[in-house]
């Protein structure tokens, strides 16, 4: 029994030495590396460095008015396009616009040379794609029930008709709230399901009924943290009045 004990002891000690010695040493080395390096965090694939070196960002644009409007000829317009333009100006680089379908654009982040994808993207959609990372959600869009001026604000929908515009598929959510979705905006329909920033333009007031919240992000290659930090700094500085930009670009 003593022998058994003697066998156990050295193994324990060796393991302890490994952990108590190696881990703190690694930690110190990493801290030292961090301290003598001004660029922190850094990109595993050097996106930021490459962009600055080549004086060019490749931006995939997905047509999604008013976030991104891709015309048949010429450069894209839109609320997000403006943000990217000021980002490029800040970095002092040219923009290479690439109009692409959404899945092709997002997959291109890991397969191709795309540095940034915009087009009214929402966080969960981007997170599904391998190789794609997201910025923080710089704008929360709320799909709400709007009410015509002069009508009382409803607490619940109670079977009332709600106009659902064809470009925003929300009819199931309206039904879940007890409403009756319709695609005809007639005189007797006083309610409409719309994003919160678009109510004013339709002359509607906002009720307290929220159908859905959409967290808007831009997409970057996964893990490119220096690149992400630069982009997020700009978003934090410029995305505050984002609903104004959306209203400017609505058709």
């Amino acid at each position: 029994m003593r022998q058994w004990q003697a066998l156990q002891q050295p193994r324990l000690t060796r393991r302890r030495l490994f952990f108590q010695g190696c881990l703190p040493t690694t930690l110190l080395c990493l801290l030292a590396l961090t301290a003598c390096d001004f660029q922190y965090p850094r990109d595993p694939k050097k996106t930021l460095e490459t962009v600055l070196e080549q004086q060019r960002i490749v931006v995939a644009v997905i047509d999604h008015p008013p976030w991104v409007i891709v015309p048949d000829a010429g450069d894209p317009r839109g609320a997000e396009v403006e943000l990217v333009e000021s980002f490029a100006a800040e970095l002092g680089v040219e923009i290479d616009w690439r109009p692409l379908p959404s899945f092709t654009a997002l997959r291109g982040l890991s397969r191709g040379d795309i540095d940034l994808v915009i087009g009214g993207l929402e966080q969960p959609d981007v997170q599904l794609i391998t190789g794609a990372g997201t910025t923080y959600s710089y704008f929360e869009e709320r799909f709400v029930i709007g009410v015509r001026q002069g009508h009382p604000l409803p607490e619940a929908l109670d079977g009332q008709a709600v106009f659902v515009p064809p470009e925003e598929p929300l009819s199931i959510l309206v039904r879940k709230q007890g409403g009756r979705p319709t695609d005809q905006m007639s005189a007797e329909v006083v309610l409409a399901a719309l994003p919160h920033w678009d109510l004013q333009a339709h002359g509607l007031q906002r009720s307290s009924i929220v159908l859905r919240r959409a967290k808007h992000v831009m997409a970057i290659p996964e893990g490119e943290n220096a690149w992400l930090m630069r982009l997020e700094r700009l978003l934090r500085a410029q995305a505050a009045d984002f609903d104004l930009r959306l209203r400017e670009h609505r058709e």
Partner: protein
Amino acid sequence: MSSYERRLPEAQRRTLRRAQWLQLVWILVLFSIIAAIYLSAGNSQAMKTAWIEDALSLVPPIAFLAATWIEGWEPNARFPLGYVRVSSISYLVSSVALAGVAIFLIIDSTLTLIRTEHATIGSVEIFGTTLWFGWVMIAALLYSVIPPVIFGRLKMKPARELHDKTLWADAFMNKADWLTGLAGIVGVLGIGIGWWWADAVAAMIIAADVLRDGFKHTRAAIHDLMDEMPKTVDDSEFEPLIDQVRAHLNALSWVEESRLRFSEEGRYLAGSIFLVTAEGEPTPERLEQLERDILSLHWRMLDVAIMPRSKLAQPLVGEMGEAGLRPLPKDRVGESGAR
């Protein structure tokens, strides 16, 4: 007399109450750690691993509280031996949980490496300044490192006093927690340098350490339930109390030969003593006296059955010291013998 009516002595009962309070406070602290790590985990594999490990650390204290509560229930017609063995079960539950999750974590971080997933960690705005979120993660990990070390130390003493293996395993897990936190910090710093793999490797090291503990404790818990010779609480040697009993028997002039068969019943010991005695001995009074004497050797002595014999059967194995991890020889399978 039914020995199962014996309860913990006053001093141990007080220690037990203290240990229960300690675990209760620890559970609350642990919840705050779990919340802090959860809120800052983001996309880091090592943080996720540390979080699961912390959430898992809830199992032993909860198992301890449940077991010490059930242990106090009265024996009844359905469970005539009482509920003292419940602490052996809680020990097994805690250690299997530990090992199982470690395996899950190793698989999870291996997949991260195979798929070459890069952790995306962005910025956060705190009081108007934009910070890398990695720093927040590191702060949370630092917070998760300090309390377990303190609580781990506090739990060692009651665990020894109460001979409580669940509490002992828990104390050790807590003391090892600082390594987990540190490995997590290394992982996050690694991501910052652009070593996307650092995080998953750190997670694997954490998981390997957890697996080691889980495996060690699962083995010890299974051994207990297999009626292994009682061991000390740290599982390092056989219980010296057995030798005391043997010495006590050897000192008696009317006992010619004796053989002991003891096993652990939760925190207690119970077993049988086979005796070959001198001519005309023993009288029932003498046996009762002997039983009382042995039970009063230590509070852990829960129950002994003393059986006088004309001669002792040859035991299957030699006395203590036999490892016993071999199959029985064919001609002896099915034979029973006293240890």
